């Protein structure tokens, strides 16, 4: 390695030395410490912005007994509290998410028009008469895919148990997986 000249500059005359002096080294350490603490502080701040506990509705809850729901209907009962519909078909229940797949508004179920309709940008999803297989498929407006479905099981006490943490997507052919519907004749 070429040596520094006597005045501390390198052979080309630039002020930067080729071999770091003790002063360079200490300066490097100092700036390294400053930048490291800023970096660690920034990372800690980003982590701080993600709370560990979310004060949001629980993802699992009981919906009462199956016979409480009218046959061949879409129930609005849980829309306000938990934001999904419970549709009862001839042989099964399906829990349809009320979270529009466009930009997250809450659609409404229009019984007479037989469709789910989002008030924000007009997305429409097929209604009850389309059958359990394709119910809530998007057919008009900007929504890119069907409404999601939530996991349904029967709890030990005979009530329907829904788990909003587990979703099934029609566009991924998940509607016949166990839990994507609740068989009930």
């Amino acid at each position, binding site marked *: 390695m070429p040596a520094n000249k006597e005045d501390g500059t390198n052979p080309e005359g630039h002020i930067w030395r080729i071999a770091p002096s003790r002063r360079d080294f200490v300066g490097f350490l100092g700036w390294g410490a400053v930048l490291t603490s800023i970096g660690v502080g920034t990372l800690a701040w980003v982590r701080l*912005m*993600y*709370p560990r506990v*979310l*004060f*949001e509705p629980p993802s699992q809850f009981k919906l009462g007994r199956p016979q409480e729901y009218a046959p061949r209907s879409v129930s609005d009962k849980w829309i306000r509290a938990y934001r999904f519909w419970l549709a009862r078909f001839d042989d099964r229940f399906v829990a349809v998410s009320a979270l529009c797949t466009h*930009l*997250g*508004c809450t659609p409404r179920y229009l019984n007479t028009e037989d469709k789910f309709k989002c008030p*924000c940008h007009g997305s429409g999803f097929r209604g009850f008469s389309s059958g359990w297989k394709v119910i809530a498929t998007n057919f008009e407006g900007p929504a890119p895919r069907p409404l999601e479905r939530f996991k349904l099981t029967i709890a030990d006490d005979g009530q329907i148990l829904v788990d909003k943490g587990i979703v099934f997507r029609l566009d991924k052919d998940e509607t016949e997986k166990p839990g994507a519907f609740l068989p009930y004749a």
Partner: protein
Amino acid sequence: MAEPNKGWFDIVKSSYVWKSMFRHEYQDTYRNRVLQVSSNVFLHLHPTKIRRHALRLRFTWCMGGITFLLFLILTVTGVILMFYYRPTGEYAYHDMKYLQFDVPFGMIMRNMHRWGAHAMVIAVWLHMFRVFMTGSYKPPREFNWVIGVNLLVMTLMLSFTGYLLPWDQLSIWAVTVGTNMGRATPLLGHEGPFAEFLGVNARYDARALLTAGRLVGAATLLRFYVLHCIFIPIIAAVLMIVHFWRVRKDGGISGPL
């Protein structure tokens, strides 16, 4: 004891307190005129020289100045609204209604803030349009254009965060829609391109950083309030300082060709 030929104003001016504040004499001389400006922290911010064309309204539209004036109005009315507004899920909407219907002069403060905010967004766009059409983004002012674009973003972010604060249906769903666009952020949004590289999910991604959860809720309201009242205004103010300083350092307001 006052001397008999001195008025009370002379006595005040010769006092220690007055002289500690105003370091120049009162006579109308060129030197004192300069000192009046240069020894005053507020007046010294003015440029020493303004070109005649910089005052031509048809050239500048004064949109930058109007934007800054609106920012000052929004700062003052915003701070006044903060005396009554509580950014929590229980109180926010009712405090907004309270300000409108019962607080003396609350209605005009809220409406000045609301319409001023709309006007500021419009003025910023018109300012940008003017700067573009007069070619004022060209060297040596190209860096100031970049600062200006950042200020535009800050203005839009202020507008967006402020929109949630009334906490009514319109604001909740508008912010639901707005934050959901964050799902599609490249790398940082859980439905965006390359999301799998960083392993982000719906719980930890760019959208969750804004909404403080999976939904727009009370935590989002508090977060937007802090962003709206503290975080973004400070960044915008710093950028404005740089913006105005650069205008002068790059030769003042650009002139007609």
